[in-house]
C-alpha cells in the first residue's frame, strides 16, 4: 500500500511536468478538467461530507463565471480580483439560498436547491442588460496576474494558475473536513437526529458548509470565464449541476480527490465518445447508471476497498 503522501507528491510532480509534454489542445483539455474537478470537489463538501445532495450547484459556478466576466470586461482588473469577485458573489448568494434550503433535509433539500438554481438561471437568462441574455458575455480577457506582473495569456501560464488554485483549494477543503467543524459535518451525515439530541443545532453547520462549497464553486466558475473567454446561462443550467453529481459519484463520494478524478473520467469519456457519436449522452448515462448500481464507492472508493483487501 503506497502512502497517500507519496501519491500527493507524484500528483504534484505530474501536474508540474505534464504541460511540457502535452500538445496545445491537450493542455487546454487538462485545464478544463481541472476547473470541472474543482467544481466537483466543492460539491463533495456538502454531498460527501455532510450528506446534503444539492441539485443546483451549477448556479454558484455560473455566478462566479458572471462576476468574473463582468469584472474583467468592465473594470479591467487583474485576474485574481475577478476570482475573488466570483467566489464572493457565489458565497453571498448562497447565504439566503442556504438559509431556506437547509430548513429542509434529504430529498426536499435536493429539490429546493434545484428550484433556486433554476430561478437564478432564469434571472441570468432574462436580465439582458447585465448578462447578455442567452448570448452571454463574450470576449472576456485574460488580464495579467497583477498590474505590471506576468501575463496569463499563454495556455501554460493559465494552466499553472488553474492548477495552483485547484491544489490550494484541495488543501483548504481537506483542512476543513479534518477540523472539528468538519468532524461535526460528518456526524450530521451519519446521524442527524443523534447530533441534535446531543444538544447541537445542525443548521448553522449546514449553512456554513453550503456557503463554503458555493465559494469554491464560484472560484471554479471565475476561472472558467477568462479561460474560455465567455460566460453564458448554460453553465448555470441544471444539466451541469447533474453532471457535477455524476463526477462526484464516478470519482468517489466523500473523498475530495475522487471528484477531481471523476471529473477527468467524465470529460474524457465524453471526449472519446463524442468523436464517434453525437448521442454520447446515452452511453455516459449508461456508464453512470451501471456505476451507481455496481460501484457506489466510485473509482477512489473501489480502489481503497481493493487496497484494503489486498
Amino acid at each position: 500500500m503506497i502512502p497517500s503522501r507519496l501519491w500527493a507528491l507524484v500528483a504534484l510532480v505530474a501536474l508540474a511536468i505534464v504541460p511540457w509534454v502535452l500538445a496545445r489542445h491537450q493542455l487546454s483539455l487538462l485545464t478544463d478538467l481541472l476547473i470541472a474537478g474543482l467544481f466537483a470537489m466543492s460539491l463533495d463538501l456538502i454531498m460527501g461530507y455532510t450528506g446534503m445532495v444539492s441539485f443546483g450547484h451549477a448556479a454558484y459556478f455560473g455566478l462566479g463565471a458572471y462576476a468574473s466576466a463582468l469584472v474583467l470586461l468592465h473594470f479591467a482588473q487583474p485576474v485574481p480580483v475577478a476570482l475573488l469577485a466570483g467566489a464572493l458573489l457565489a458565497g453571498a448568494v448562497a447565504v439566503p439560498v442556504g438559509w431556506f434550503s437547509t430548513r429542509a433535509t434529504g430529498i426536499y433539500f435536493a429539490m429546493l436547491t434545484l428550484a433556486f438554481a433554476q430561478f437564478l438561471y432564469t434571472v441570468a437568462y432574462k436580465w439582458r442588460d447585465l448578462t447578455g441574455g442567452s448570448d452571454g458575455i463574450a470576449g472576456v480577457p485574460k488580464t495579467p496576474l497583477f498590474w505590471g506582473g506576468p501575463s496569463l495569456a499563454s495556455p501554460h501560464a493559465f494552466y499553472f494558475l488553474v492548477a495552483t488554485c485547484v491544489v490550494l483549494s484541495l488543501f483548504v477543503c481537506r483542512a476543513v473536513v479534518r477540523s472539528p467543524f468538519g468532524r461535526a459535518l460528518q456526524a450530521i451525515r451519519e446521524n442527524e437526529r443523534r447530533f441534535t439530541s446531543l444538544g447541537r443545532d445542525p443548521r448553522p453547520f449546514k449553512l456554513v458548509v453550503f456557503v463554503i462549497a458555493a465559494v469554491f464553486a464560484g472560484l471554479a466558475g471565475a476561472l472558467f470565464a477568462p479561460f474560455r473567454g465567455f460566460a453564458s446561462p448554460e453553465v448555470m443550467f441544471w444539466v451541469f449541476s447533474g453532471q457535477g453529481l455524476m463526477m462526484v459519484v464516478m470519482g468517489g463520494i466523500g473523498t475530495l480527490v475522487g471528484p477531481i478524478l471523476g471529473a477527468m473520467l467524465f470529460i474524457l469519456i465524453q471526449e472519446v465518445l463524442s468523436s464517434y457519436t453525437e448521442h454520447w449522452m446515452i452511453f455516459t448515462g449508461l456508464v453512470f447508471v451501471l456505476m451507481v448500481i455496481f460501484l457506489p464507492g466510485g473509482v477512489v472508493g473501489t480502489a481503497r476497498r481493493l487496497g484494503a483487501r489486498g
Partner: protein
Amino acid sequence: MSILIEQLLNAVALAALLFLVSVGLSLVFGILGVVNFAHGVFYMLGAYLTFTTVALSGNFWLSLIVAPPVVGIIGALLESSTLRFIYRRPPIYQLLLTFGLALMLEEAVRLVYGPTAKPVDPPPMLQGSVALAGIAYPRYRLFLVVLGCTVGVAVWLFLSRTRAGLVIRAVAQNSEMADCLGADVARVRTLVFGAACALAGLGGVAAAPMTTAYLGMGIGVIVDAFVVVVIGGLGSIGGSMAGSLIVGAAQTWGAFYLPETAMVIMYAVMGAILVFRPWGLFGEEE
C-alpha cells in the same frame, strides 16, 4: 371581473396539468421512497408518443389510450432492471440513478425524433371556445380540468377503496411487514412505478396540443412538479392537488400582472410556506 374569472379558470387548467404530473411523482415517493428524477422525461415521452399516434392515425383520442400504457411499460421495465437492486441504499443513490436514466431517455428521444419541436393539433371537438360565465373559454382547457379531476378522484378511490390499493398502502407504510404478510413487494413497486410513469405520460398527452412536444419539456415540468410537491408535501394526493392549485395560480397571475418576474412569485410562495411548514402543507413531519 371577467378578467379575474378568466385568470382563475386558466390557473385551474394549468393546475390540472401540473397535478397529472406531480401526483405520480408524489405517489412514487410515498410508496417507494424514491424521488424519480426521470418523471419529467416520461411526461415528455407521452407528448412525443402523442405526436406519433396522431401522425399515424390522425386520432388524438387514440393517443390518450395508447401512449400512457406504453410509457408505463417502459417505466416498469426500467424499474425492474435498475432501481430494484438499490432500494436498500440511501435515497440519494436512487435519485442519482433516475437522473442517469433521465439523461439516457432524453438523448434517446433526441435520437429518434430529432431536435425540432413536434406540433400536435387538438381534436376538432376540443377546438374553439365555449361561453362560460360571460367569457369565451377555450374548450381544451376545460378538457384539462375535467381530466385532472377525473384522474385525481380515480387515484384516490383506487388507493382508498380497493384491495390492491390496500396492499399498496401497506407496502408504503411498512414494506417488510407487508412482505411477511404475503404481499409481493417487488411486484407492487414495479407496478406502482409503472402506473406513476403512465400518469406522467398521460400528462404529456394532455400537454402536447398546448405546448407541442419538445426536448427539455421534461425538465421544465419536473422543476414545477418539485415545487408543487414541496408546497403540498410528498406522498399525499391532496397535497399534490393543493400544491398544483397554488403553483398554477402563482404562475398564471404572475404572468398576467408581473410578466418579467412570474417565476419569482412561485418561489416566493414556496419560500414562505417552507419557513412555516418545511415538510409541506399536507406532508408529515419527519
